[in-house]
């Protein structure tokens, strides 16, 4: 089984690498890294923070583009173009198909991030060498942790894409649902904590019902803010191992549940 899943993952990843848009995404990320070198001098003291902000933003945004534009295509093409019949006639189960595709997407994301990380490390090291006095609390350790958690966040997003691909019939709907889930997931924490702080201060900004709805939504969508270590990396703040472990376990748990649901639905699905 592992062999078959691995083979499908490899094929999916290779197909993604062949996609021309990948070059566009890589160029975009490299452009932001170059911009970083140009812009850093505009700031006064915290050049390290600005550099880390821009580098991590470039990596994570390139990852988002990758998942939304290449990942969804890879997942949905089989169903859109009806090649799924061909694939499913091969000797592997539908569950293996889901896991194989998912691992292929994650592999693609990890390979791209690893490539970009090489460039990004060079950029950070370069700016660091240009302005050594303005890199206050910067440490490479926290920086690499932040990149690892960007990868985890993207892996979670891949699971969302796979899940929606398994239940919808068109890649466009998958795109809309995945983007929506991402936008809600990335902002839900901020909204909830804001409402809580306002409620604590005695001000009613949202009705009780709306707050309940938001609480329920927070149970459904993943809290992407849990994987965001950009501020910590920018200022070299101390990372508590417990926090890293909890976030990683939370992400992994969410991924497993989504993939399990996806296989459950995909097994019962009729293709025509």
């Amino acid at each position: 089984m592992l062999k078959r899943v691995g083979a499908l993952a490899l094929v999916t990843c290779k197909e993604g690498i062949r996609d021309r848009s990948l070059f566009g995404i890589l160029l975009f990320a490299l452009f932001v890294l170059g911009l970083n070198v140009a812009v850093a001098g505009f700031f006064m003291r915290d050049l390290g923070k600005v550099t880390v902000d821009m580098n991590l933003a470039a990596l994570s945004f390139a990852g988002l583009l990758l998942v939304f534009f290449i990942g969804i295509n890879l997942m949905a093409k089989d169903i859109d173009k009806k090649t799924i019949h061909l694939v499913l006639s091969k000797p592997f189960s539908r569950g293996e198909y889901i896991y194989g595709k998912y691992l292929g997407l994650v592999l693609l994301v990890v390979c791209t991030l690893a490539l970009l990380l090489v460039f990004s490390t060079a950029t950070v090291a370069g700016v660091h060498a240009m302005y050594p006095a303005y890199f206050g609390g910067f440490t490479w350790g926290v920086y690499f942790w932040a990149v690892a958690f960007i990868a985890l966040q993207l892996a979670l997003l891949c699971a969302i894409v796979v899940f929606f691909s398994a239940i919808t019939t068109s890649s466009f709907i998958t795109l809309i649902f995945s983007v929506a889930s991402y936008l809600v997931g990335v902002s839900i924490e901020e909204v909830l904590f804001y409402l809580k702080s306002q409620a604590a201060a005695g001000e009613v900004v949202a009705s009780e019902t709306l707050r309940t709805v938001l609480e329920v939504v927070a149970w459904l969508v993943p809290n992407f803010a849990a994987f965001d270590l950009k501020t910590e990396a920018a200022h070299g703040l101390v990372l508590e191992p417990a926090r890293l472990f909890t976030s990683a376990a939370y992400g992994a748990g969410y991924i497993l549940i989504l993939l399990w649901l996806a296989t459950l639905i995909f097994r019962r699905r009729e293709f025509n």
Partner: protein
Amino acid sequence: MRWRRAGINALMLVVLLPVYLFLHGISWEQRAEVRRSSPPGYTMPAPFSRVLAMGYQGLLSDYEFLRAITFYGDRSVKQERMSAADWDFFTYSLEVVTDLDPYFLDPYVLGEGLLTWDAQRFEEANALLTKGMAYRDWDWQLPYYVGFNHFYFLKDYASGSEYLMQAAEMPGSPAFLKTLAARLAYYGGKSQTALLFLQQMLAQSNSDTLKQRMQKRLLVLERAVQIEKALQRYRNEHDTDPVALQMLVEEGYLQKLPPDPYGGEWGILRNGRVYSTSKFVDPKPAQSK
């Protein structure tokens, strides 16, 4: 047929390109005009911008900070005085920037540099810095700035030394801080306080615009200190203040009154501090329209 098409293409190029270039020029000129007369602008309140940053709060804080500093730079290059509304926008921008990323050092440094000297908004500057102290609790610079503000601007020497002591106890703080607190307590609100402080700020800054401004201010403070020292000698020997600063020159305590680079006239405050009518800021340019 082929020649005709080439001819048409050449004609299009000859006609359209100049038209485009002409329109481009006009459009940019117009935009420059629109921007010149535009009000300060709007910074989205932090609760909204934190959500709309979509996980890129740090990047948004960098952007908003650049916006604030270029806004100030724009006014400063055109020699336009910042109006109260401009300062409101500037102060609020720094507040939002530090809400987006409360660990970001630059807005605090910029706030200390401009909100105090130029805007005379000491309370706002101190509130901003105190907010930063809660987050950057390892950084000696923020309590150092607050301490200076208390000393020099607010004349609250007790709180001033408290903040300076706090700064001196932090890791990485320069050794002179420990003695500085004592020296500042002695000099109090005199120009020497500001001189010591500015020398420190200048040594740490890498922004050319700010450096130039600080150097000018450093020069005027050095001159103020020079006059204050002469004044002190006069006072020690005569037990009274001179009626006018010119007397220091007449009686040989000073070779001549050094000119104020900001173009003001020197005078003596009742507490013995030398001041200038320029208040050490650039004079208001003649109202131009």
